[in-house]
């Protein structure tokens, strides 16, 4: 049965509970999204009916599991409009995807090469590149973020100086998990390619929230997690263009990724198996495929409009609170708002909100260098998804007013 916007909330069992005696208002979707019944059921069904190892057995269960696993790969390829299912590598999530590409590409880098990232990257799209730079002798540089509250986004003018022929990799996020900034991915990929650099896009905050077409974006690699798009935890994707993947050395080795082995060495299978050593996370890949079905039945353009409308409303309401500092763009933004109060620390805000049943995130959002640049150690973040409502923003604002009153008393 296709989901409909009228009863989206009914599809998510977890939402129908009370926290501290209040109806749960889940606004921590940037950290992880909740799962529709269809995804939960798919996991149960797989374990009750089809569970088996893939690509190995000739028995009925193994064939069913293999078909479902490879079906999920094709589904994910359609979800991001990849040209070929072999361009979809299953990983544990965004972090593993970026580590894989950073280690594999990093092995080809040398002193004098430049890895370009941006100042708004999540630690998962920063630390792997620091490691790759250290291991290879390459230099890591950053596209600056503009404005006291990072409201200006990336400094695209500075990009002209930064994107030199020495740049071999340009790694950047699609939507910032802290700022809500939507980066011009297609333009950044085009400019990277113009100097011969490979583009690596962190789509963790975008892929389940907005239509995404890797061919239209023109990216070389793209990483995302299943759990932020209504899928299970422990499953994610690294997309890579086929021509690149077949030249890329494997990161992990072992069973399942080899064409043939003798005592002296081994030959690798082509992508995607080359990058999936060991028994893969079959059940969660299948669950993620079902999450794609769920999101596409609602329509990601509709989800985007819904999220953005909530973020706009939240931003406008938050701006009326005394002593608040709002981060990120003042106009169009992704479905999240990050803010700091002059006299109340984010952890105290989050503890008070939890008392009202509101789940928020407080902290540095795995964005410490950016926080330091902005003169902050932590912010509070409200992040929205398809099941959130305008009324929930009213609950949030009332909770924040109560917190401010308490600490000002």
């Amino acid at each position, binding site marked *: 049965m296709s989901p409909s916007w009228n009863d989206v909330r009914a599809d998510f069992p977890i939402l129908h509970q009370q926290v501290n005696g209040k109806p749960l208002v889940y606004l921590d979707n940037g950290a992880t999204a909740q799962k529709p019944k269809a995804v939960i059921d798919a996991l149960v069904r797989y374990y009750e009916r089809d569970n088996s190892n893939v690509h190995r057995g000739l028995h009925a269960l193994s064939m069913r599991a293999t078909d479902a696993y490879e079906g999920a790969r094709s589904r994910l390829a359609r979800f991001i409009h990849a040209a070929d299912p072999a361009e979809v590598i299953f990983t544990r999530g965004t972090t593993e995807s970026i580590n894989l590409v950073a280690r594999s590409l990093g092995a080809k880098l040398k002193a004098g090469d430049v890895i370009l990232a941006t100042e708004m990257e999540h630690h998962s799209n920063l630390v792997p590149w620091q490691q790759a730079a250290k291991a290879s002798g390459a230099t890591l540089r950053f596209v600056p973020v503009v404005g006291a509250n990072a409201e200006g986004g990336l400094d695209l003018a500075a990009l002209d100086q930064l994107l030199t022929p020495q740049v071999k990799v340009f790694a950047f996020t699609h939507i910032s998990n802290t700022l809500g900034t939507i980066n011009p991915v297609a333009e950044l990929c085009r400019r990277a390619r113009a100097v011969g650099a490979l583009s690596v896009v962190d789509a963790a905050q975008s892929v389940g929230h907005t239509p995404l077409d890797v061919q239209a974006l023109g990216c070389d690699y793209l990483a995302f997690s299943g759990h932020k798009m209504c899928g299970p935890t422990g499953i994610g994707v690294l997309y890579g263009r086929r021509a690149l993947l077949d030249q890329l050395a494997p990161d992990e080795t072992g069973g399942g990724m080899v064409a043939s082995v003798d005592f002296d060495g081994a030959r690798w299978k082509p992508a995607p198996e080359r990058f999936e050593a060991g028994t893969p996370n079959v059940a969660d890949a299948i669950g993620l495929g079902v999450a794609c079905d769920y999101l596409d039945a609602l329509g990601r353009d509709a989800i985007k409009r819904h999220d953005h409308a909530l973020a706009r409303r939240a931003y406008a309401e938050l701006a009326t609170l005394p002593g608040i500092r709002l981060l990120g763009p003042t106009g169009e933004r992704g479905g999240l708002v990050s803010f700091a109060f002059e006299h109340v*620390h984010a*952890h105290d805000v989050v503890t008070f909100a939890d008392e009202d049943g509101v789940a928020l995130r407080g902290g540095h959002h795995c964005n410490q260098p950016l926080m330091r640049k902005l003169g902050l150690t932590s912010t509070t973040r409200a992040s929205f998804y398809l099941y959130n409502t305008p009324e929930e923003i009213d609950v949030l604002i009332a909770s924040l007013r109560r917190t401010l009153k*308490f600490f000002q008393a």
Partner: protein
Amino acid sequence: MSADLTELYQQVILDHNRRPRNRGKLPTANRVAHGDNPSCGDQCSVYLRLEGDRIADLSFDGSGCAISQASASLMTTRLKGKTAAEAEALFQQFHDIVTTGQAPEEISDLGAFAGVHAFPARIKCATLGWHAALNALKGDPVPATTETHND
């Protein structure tokens, strides 16, 4: 407001959060240690002047939530004049308070942190300053003007 939250944010804690005592670098310090809470980014530096085995003076600096700031502030008022062994013993008592919610009567204002035990995620906020102080006591003497940490 729930009883748990009222317990957590006692007047003593709000007062120390609003008007922290002994905050800032201690110019005469001969020991310093830095505490980080990697999960949330809270930071606390503790500066000590150790004379023999006794804490002659101390201060703290850093940023964090009301619980961590108030705890570090209150700690500085309680550790002044204590020996390293006395400081260690007092921390044990404090740790018991925040983990069990039981405060012995003679412990006075530190008992304000008993409410923390209902919020397990906040225990590390309450103990951050104490860990920094104990590390400063154990650490090698360093001039307080020197940064001793990489971050």
